[in-house]
């Protein structure tokens, strides 16, 4: 997929686990895993806002467009 979710990198930079983030923003671990592994079909603005607020990042830090080829 051309849109890559950089959640792993951001969590690593913040020394935070997916479970920590899940507890802080109130989104289930299962859903965050789907997002992290790039299996999500769509993302709510509210989820994006919660993650960006918690990790102190911009949407562009989390979602990156990469060429398939």
């Amino acid at each position, binding site marked *: 997929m051309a849109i890559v979710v950089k959640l792993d990198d951001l969590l690593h930079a913040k020394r935070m686990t997916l479970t920590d983030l899940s507890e802080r923003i109130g*989104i289930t671990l299962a859903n965050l895993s*789907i997002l992290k592994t790039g299996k*999500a079909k*769509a*993302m709510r603005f509210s*989820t994006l806002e919660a993650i960006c607020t918690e990790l102190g990042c911009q949407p562009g830090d989390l979602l990156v467009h990469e060429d398939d080829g």
Partner: protein
Amino acid sequence: MPAQHSTLLGVTRGLLWLMLGLVAAATVLVLVVGIALIAAWPDVMVELKNSKVFVDPGIIQSQLLWMMAVLAAILAVAVYVLRQLQALVASAATGDPFVAANARRLRRIGWGLVAAQLLAIPLHMIASSVAAAHSEFAGMGGLSLNNILAILLAFVLAAVFEQGAAMRDELEGTV
């Protein structure tokens, strides 16, 4: 699921079983009449003459047998449609009715109703040819506006469920 929904589904489930029971009883009746038409034709003919419903009871044995065959086919279709409805209700009871399987079930129900309506046409042709014009028997079967509406409804609902299933799918992949 709200309590009134589960009550409604419970009542529907009960009604569907009742209808299946009635279809089973009707099937037995059709079989008994069919056997009587073959095995006891002279006695049946006397009864038919006495009823004064039939134009010429002496020559209608084969037509009546054909009617029983068509009726048996309609009853078989009814069982098929009711079984599909039962599966639909069972799926609704689990709280997740918007799945592709239900769209397929509704489409099968639609085709079942088409088959039943098509079978009702020869049934009416035979019934009106053997019975006196204004008798109840002669009015059996034929085209029915209700049936056509039910067919349209089943196909429209199938399309709605297809859309619902697609939307559900989309929502499940949303984080």
